């Protein structure tokens, strides 16, 4: 599995983590190339269905990140998100989705180095876990290939 390059999608909020990742850039802190960021206004907007879709489409790992509690630009979007994550994570675990592949974090606009760290940790973890074939095998069901063109 030496040449396995994990595909990792990051769902982040605009105000803290996206800005924090900008700071990682301005500070020229280097990190692994495997992550692609998708920007949301707030963690409160991050739909659990999108996490499932990401795994469906072949992501090996997912990062979900936003403002620390009490720091939400919208004051409480992240609190709502946290509650959902707590429950959704339990559900995923119960149906046998590998929750080690989803990393939740709070990265503020000031935590450029933390963002690099979150990415690197996730990449290392996913490298260890290997590709998410368990899920992908099911996702690539023949009927789907036919109907979805």
């Amino acid at each position: 599995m030496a040449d396995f390059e994990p595909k990792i999608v990051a769902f982040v909020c605009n105000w803290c983590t996206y800005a924090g990742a900008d700071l990682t850039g301005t500070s020229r802190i280097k990190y692994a190339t495997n992550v692609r960021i998708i920007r949301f206004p707030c963690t409160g907007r991050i739909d659990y269905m999108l996490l499932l879709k990401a795994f469906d489409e072949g992501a090996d790992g997912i990062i979900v990140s936003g403002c620390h509690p009490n720091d939400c630009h919208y004051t409480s979007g992240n609190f709502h998100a946290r509650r959902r994550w707590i429950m959704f994570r339990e559900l995923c675990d119960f149906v046998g989705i590998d929750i080690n592949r989803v990393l939740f974090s709070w990265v503020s606009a000031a935590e450029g180095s933390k963002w690099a760290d979150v990415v690197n940790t996730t990449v290392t973890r996913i490298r260890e876990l290997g590709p998410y074939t368990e899920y992908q095998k099911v996702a690539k069901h023949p009927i789907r290939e036919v109907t979805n063109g």
Partner: protein
Amino acid sequence: MSKIGVFVCHCGENISATVDCAKVAETAAGYDGVVYSIDYKYMCSDPGQSLIKSAIIEKGLTGVVVASCSPRMHEPTFRKACAEAGLNPYMCEMANLREHCSWVHEKGDATTEKAIDLVRILVEKVKKNHSLNAIKVPVTKTALVIGGGIAGIQASLDIANSGHKVILIERDPSIGGHMSQLSETFPTLDCSQCILTPRMVEVAQHENITLYTYAELESLEGFVGNFKAKIRRKSKSLDEKICTGCGQCTTKCPVKKIPSEFNEGLGKRTAIYVPFPQAVPNKPVIDRVNCTYYIKGKCKVCEIVCPTKAIRFDQEDTIVEAEVGAIVVATGFTVKQPDFFPEYGFGKYPDVITGLQFERLASASGPTLGEIRRPSDGKVPEKIVFIACAGSRDPAKGIPYCSKICCMYIAKHAMLYQHKVHGGKSYVFYMDIRAGGKMYEEFVRRAIEDDGVNYIRGRVSRIYEKNGKLIVKGADTLLGAMPVDIDADMVVLATAGIANEGSEELAQKLHTSYDSYHFFSEAHPKLKPVETNTAGIFLAGACQSPKDIPESVAMASGAAVKVACLFSQDELTREPLIAVVNRQAAPVFSSCVGCFLCVSACPYQAIEKEEIKNRTGEVIKTIAKVNPGLCQGCGTCVAFCRTKSIDIQGYTHEEMYSEVMALLNEY
């Protein structure tokens, strides 16, 4: 059919040094719907923008992806350029190739591949984007200023003088803040009261300013230009309209031993009191906690002596509702009580005092009428020690940051002492002298050179009492950490400046953010120092971080200009990135089923009920409706709604879904 243009920027070499920009542009050219793709040295430059504009016109682009720096940097620039060429600005998206790619990765295929992915995500998104129009909202041209220290005063006066109405609320019975407690001020040593009092009076008399003292913000709703504030006016137990401020009551009140807040506990006050002689308004309030009548049900001396019968024992708090368009927060700071330093003996030895207490001793209107006398026995101290950084720059016991004002006020204190006590000896223990500022370093040098203040670089480890003296055990690090013991008569601690009590709750009421030290956060540390992340709410003075008077005043004027700018328009334009509930054809009308579970999920109470009626006016369905004025566009409701009936413009289900799809499915 979409016609997308992709514009890849080299950002000089910032991007092109690690990303193969030409390859990115080339690859993008092959995507479905992309009709134009090019790389260029500086997209944000004039020629770069022209490139985009002419492509929009010539190729009839329906969407643009600029692959350059962070959208947090240049999104407005490029959206504006698109608008100028006739493309709806919300049909322009940015792929962050710099902060999220070239700057954080080494040169290589993987980096270019990531850049390509980032572009593809946004190409797919922009295909699903919709044209959006900015939202216009009216502006209420009244400002609310919270906190009546020098910053709040300055902001109020500046706004009022630009012709707009101001409501100033102050928690204490008088405006003035910390500045009113100061004796003289660095670096000029002019009397604080003398320069402050005229402004306080101006506030009270200004026709555009409504002053509510003894008042606090109860709650805030609404949004920029259209806030609704509820202000709690705490009961003063007094009819202010009748009271003439004659002072009969305060002289006759039998409860005389309450430590005066204004004098930092060094003087006493009565239960009905005016905090200090120059207070504005100069009318008393009853401190109900200490008043005999409220405790025991008997007394009412003040009511008896009041010549105008202004005392109102049964007065209740009142809530004032006000519509305001902008808010300036100027709630200042407070000083950390030094009791967390037990080795300095604060609280144990009465002659170990804080800097603010020293201000009161040195003040001509203070408890000693400006003579420096020890609190314990009233003697003039012959030897005095000042300790800098009592809590500041001390992550272990105090706060990690520098309180900024202490170095200067210590020099001032030592100087005032030397001026007042001839032949007295003063010592300053310091870590570093931070005297950046106009005439500041000179001021400190004056203290050392002209007034003979002894500056010792080192920390004090302990203070204890021996034979009526305070033994200060320190070390002089400039003399190889040689131990220094000083038998002082009085010790002054320059205690750390910290966020005001309740600043956290206030920030939460205002829906604005605060930093880890609980100071209010500015929107940008360099470029938006007076703005907050909440549109229409600005900061002034020490509520943002400890600062001295000139800085507080400058910031207040800055905030006032921001407010005046806002009020110079009759209508505001807001970004249309807000939530909407879908509407469909009859008989469904909307997929919203009116469960209204989203209502409590919205942090801004933006979701209302809307009745759909038939021709005869009968309600056929009740569904959710997002108030476009209140919605801030967080999208919490969107992820929450089961039926996906709410969507957020600019981050729609379709847009976000296509981003995920595009990312993971290679072409």
